[in-house]
């Protein structure tokens, strides 16, 4: 069951730098661990995170093994216009979660 929390200010002034915080539920299994019987546990991680602001990419990140479970990604961008911020996480085993948040710029 995948769930994500995003934290975007509901309102901002034009030109203001806003902080965006995201948190997603994911085990981030490294692929380097083994079970008690010695069988390798296959890698299962989020590979890529992208944030688009009204369709334009404003932030992206590549994720790797050894990033902790439930990755928390915080970044900032400039509030340019009212609209939607879309967040997209993709990873191993077809993992794909999309979340969005509205922002009003005045």
């Amino acid at each position: 069951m995948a769930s994500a929390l995003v934290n975007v200010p509901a309102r901002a002034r034009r030109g203001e730098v806003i902080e965006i915080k995201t948190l997603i539920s994911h085990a981030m299994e490294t692929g380097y661990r083994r079970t008690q019987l010695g069988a390798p546990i296959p890698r299962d991680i989020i590979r890529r995170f992208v944030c688009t602001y009204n369709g334009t990419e404003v932030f992206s990140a590549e994720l790797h093994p050894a990033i902790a479970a439930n990755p928390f990604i915080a970044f900032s961008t400039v509030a340019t216009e009212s609209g939607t911020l879309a967040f997209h996480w993709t990873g191993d085993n077809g993992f794909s979660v999309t979340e969005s948040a509205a922002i009003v710029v005045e």
Partner: protein
Amino acid sequence: MGASTWPPSPQRSERPGKAVALDLFDMGAPTWPPNPRRSSRPGKAVALLDYSLGRVVHRLCAAVGAVAIVTSAFAGEIPSAERRSGYDFMSRETRAMQDDDGANPGLLWVLEGGSLWNRKTGAAGRACADCHGDARASMKGVAARHPSFDAARGRPVNLEQRINLCRTDRQKAPPLAYESRDLLALTAYVARQSRGLPIDLAIDERTQPFLDAGRATFHRRQGQLNLACSQCHDDHWGRRLAGNVVPQAHPTGYPLYRLEWQGLGSLQRRLRNCLIGLRAEPHEYGAPELVDLELFLMWRARGMTIEAPAVRP
């Protein structure tokens, strides 16, 4: 003892009995009975950092003869003015993580619990919300008074068990497994509604025997290390066990997100961890002994503020 002492201390050999037993936690000049305010002396903590568990065991074996002296010297219950949540022992960064709902990973479980709260389940086809309505009102303070007495079972039940009782009795659904994602999510969602409220257990003649049993467990030496909960959490809180500060063991934030676990866990998971640390055989999840201990710990933390879901290192 001579070969294993570190750092070398000339006084030690002059005090064969007490000093040997005390060295389990204290590498400096022995003081007994221990004083909780001792934590203000930073030098001690550094010395303890190098202390491996193996060395502790070695010393325990060497100290068997001195054990009888120590049992009579409890520091006793922590006065209410000196009670501190595990939160106070954490780093600034971890505290910030707990305080910010945008960064606290426990909120992921709360979010999930919120959707489970409204989902119809079981043969009765009812959701939690169908009886209890809005959890923000109906579940306020519930976590602050659990474990609470259940008349049908004739004993106290903790919050997880209460949720499962509701599932089996009212929703006619199978109980959720302990530490399963769904049970943790529901518990976190319910506990979240008590955040900021003081722990307020109702102790009466029905719950008193279970409270006493929990208290006895807390003070009973257990496991191959032959340690009681109270020896760390009443007598030596604020000092270090390996790299970690020994907290006072107030269960104010459960279920909580432990960075070491990389996930949310219940109080019983934590208690089982501690028992394994003592090299005692841990009780099964839901065991009466663990619930009694939970009851005692919540009573011991009465009046302290619920932080659920907390973050701990």
